[in-house]
């Protein structure tokens, strides 16, 4: 049936057979607020050219998956983000997760570590070890990976503004285990643009931050070839309240800005692009999410090939990690979060993710308990081993609805790219508050929909019961963690060779002021047991600090 006759038949069906719920038609929208038709058919995908737009797995434009055999060859990496308290406590949690079949590590740092403050800084008071693990120096990093061989496990580290420093701590930890840089694999998030846009954990202003990032890309390309130097993240953009299309568009726009920065720094695109990776959210609207991942692969492959002239196949592949949506979880009836997370995890798998974190049911209340984390991990194992979702590649391809959504997602993203271009590019758009305003508007619209009852959240605005007190156990962080950590930080400072520290600090200041690559000097600082706060302090003196004009 061609598109035109389908359209005519669909109109007939709508008029004669379909029973419209009347005004309620408007209720049918995705979680992003996009209208959804009662039915999709051939006319909704009439522009689709199979080979041009979908192709085969492992072949351009990679819509169906970046690897030829996808999960039949190798399952996604089950990577639960975790960290709390001291390095010793988190090391025990890591060993617990590895013992239960987790296949990669992912470190959550506490706020002081994320923001570049030492645990004894006045700004750190009350925050040490609270929402992640406290890492002040390479000594803590060695404790964190004690007994975990860094040539046999890959590690993802959620660090951005001070990513270069934590990477240096990690590399020196491996070096001290006897593992050469070339054999270490992992990821640093290192995506500062989305920090200005959404997550708000910045230190330096945008331009020096981009220099640090290109230095890391360049250093790793030659010295640590298995390292993913940036995980370009939409996760936080979505958590801050964006729509799915905004998450997709803003993330890929950030990606293009990094590629341009690498090229501007004099690198060949094929030298660093293969080590760029992505990180997306998996929200509760199943089909919209699957479409988002498929569109992301197709857009990225085309942009890298056509706009940046990449020639290596690896430069075209959008590899991504997924985390289920923290913002979709509810404090009310928290056990329901297990169900939400399962659907979201399934969407990520149907969308072809390379690694996955499934949230624990209690994360809306506190850091997760061991029990809650185990259920979250088991959720992935059930998807992998029982549901059959991993048996065939890109199983939703050819669904009229999913292909239509994939196209729509792509065209919305292209419209946003034009808007960003019109603002003067990503950096200028950040400075003008463009992204921040868009996200705040979308998040407020969503909140109003929930409050008017137009969007139902089970246990929150429907199917509630009178006594909503959750009766699940919560993880408590012992307040003594802070004093313990401060004590061990002081021991590190007492026991190190101060002249080595002074030498490294001086060299770092000179390098930051000049033009050479910062990484070798940061490694030197790490080996001398300079703390993160001290290294950041030197860099702040040269680079300054970022200040935001708040938009709400």
């Amino acid at each position, binding site marked *: 049936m061609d598109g035109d006759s389908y359209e005519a038949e669909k109109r007939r069906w709508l008029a004669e057979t379909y029973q419209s719920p009347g005004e309620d038609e408007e209720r049918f929208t995705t979680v992003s607020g996009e209208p959804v038709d009662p039915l999709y058919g051939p006319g909704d995908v009439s522009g689709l050219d199979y080979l041009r737009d979908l192709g085969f797995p492992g072949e351009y434009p990679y819509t169906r998956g970046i690897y030829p055999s996808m999960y039949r060859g190798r399952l996604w990496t089950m990577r639960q983000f975790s960290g709390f308290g001291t390095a010793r406590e988190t090391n025990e949690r890591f060993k617990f997760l590895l013992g239960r079949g987790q296949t990669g590590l992912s470190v959550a740092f506490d*706020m*002081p570590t*994320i*923001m570049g*403050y030492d645990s004894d800084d006045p*700004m*750190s*008071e*009350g*925050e040490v070890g*609270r*929402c992640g693990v406290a890492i002040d120096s390479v000594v803590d990093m060695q404790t964190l990976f004690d007994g975990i061989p860094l040539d046999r496990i890959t590690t993802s580290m959620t660090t951005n503004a001070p990513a270069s420093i934590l990477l240096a701590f990690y590399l020196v930890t491996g070096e001290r285990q006897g593992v050469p840089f070339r054999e270490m694999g992992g990821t640093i998030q290192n995506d500062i643009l989305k*920090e200005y846009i959404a*997550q*708000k*954990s910045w230190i330096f202003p945008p331009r020096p931050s981009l220099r640090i990032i290109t230095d890391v890309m360049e250093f790793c390309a030659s010295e640590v070839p298995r390292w993913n130097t940036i995980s370009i993240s939409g996760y936080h953009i979505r*958590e*801050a*309240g964006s729509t799915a299309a905004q998450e997709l568009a803003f993330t890929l726009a950030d990606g293009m800005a990094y590629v341009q920065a690498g090229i501007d720094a004099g690198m060949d695109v094929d030298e660093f692009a293969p080590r760029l990776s992505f990180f997306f959210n998996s929200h509760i609207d199943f089909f919209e999410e699957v479409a988002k991942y498929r569109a992301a692969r197709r857009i990225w492959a085309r942009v890298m090939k056509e706009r940046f002239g990449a020639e290596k196949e690896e430069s075209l592949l959008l590899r991504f990690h997924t985390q289920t949506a923290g*913002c979709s979880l*509810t*404090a*009310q009836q928290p056990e329901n979060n297990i169900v939400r997370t399962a659907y979201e995890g399934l969407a990520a798998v149907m969308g072809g993710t390379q690694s996955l974190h499934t949230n624990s049911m209690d994360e*809306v*209340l*506190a*850091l997760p308990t061991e029990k809650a984390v185990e259920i979250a991990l088991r959720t992935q194992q059930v998807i992998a081993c029982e549901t059959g979702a991993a048996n065939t590649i890109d199983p939703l391809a050819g669904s009229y609805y999913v292909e239509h959504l994939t196209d729509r997602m792509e065209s919305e993203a292209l419209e946003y790219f034009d808007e960003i271009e019109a603002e003067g590019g990503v950096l200028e758009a950040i400075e003008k508050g463009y992204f921040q305003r868009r996200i*705040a508007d979308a*998040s*407020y619209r969503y*909140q109003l929909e*929930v*409050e008017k009852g137009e969007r139902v*959240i089970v246990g*929150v*605005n429907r199917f509630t019961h009178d006594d909503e*007190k*959750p009766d699940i156990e*919560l993880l408590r*962080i012992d*307040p003594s963690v802070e004093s313990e950590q401060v004590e061990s930080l002081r021991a590190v400072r007492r026991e190190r060779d101060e002249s080595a520290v002074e030498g490294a600090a001086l060299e770092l200041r000179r390098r930051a002021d000049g033009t050479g690559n910062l990484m070798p000097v940061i490694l030197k600082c790490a080996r001398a047991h300079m703390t993160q706060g001290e290294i950041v302090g030197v860099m702040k003196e040269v680079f300054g600090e970022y200040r*935001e004009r*708040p938009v*709400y």
Partner: protein
Amino acid sequence: MRGEKDKVRVLIAKPGLDGHDRGAKVVARALRDAGMEVIYLGLHQTPEQVVRAAIDEDVDVVGLSVLSGAHMTIFPKVLRMLEERGATDIRVIGGGIIPEDDAAELERLGVARLFAPGTPTAEIIDYVDGLPSEP
């Protein structure tokens, strides 16, 4: 209830190092849309900065959002500093990832009200609107 002339003045801030500002911004906007005078102080504020701004701006209510687990340090510190400056007429409310036991303890220490995740903004508006202008 208040007349048009004495609009409620509310300071919304994100104290500490936590950058999750979605909730704070939604609440700021909802209170503003409900006709209140809202000062949004933004991110990474120390308790000192919060208290100074609250006094300088002569607000009735301070709303703090904390999702990083530092609530047991930040709220008591703000309360103590308000007291030291004789500004106990300023009510402190808040929200974020705050377990129930901690919330009860903070309310005992003098936080007027903590709102759990999922609270409708209408409930927050009603609460702030219903606060007597003088304690």
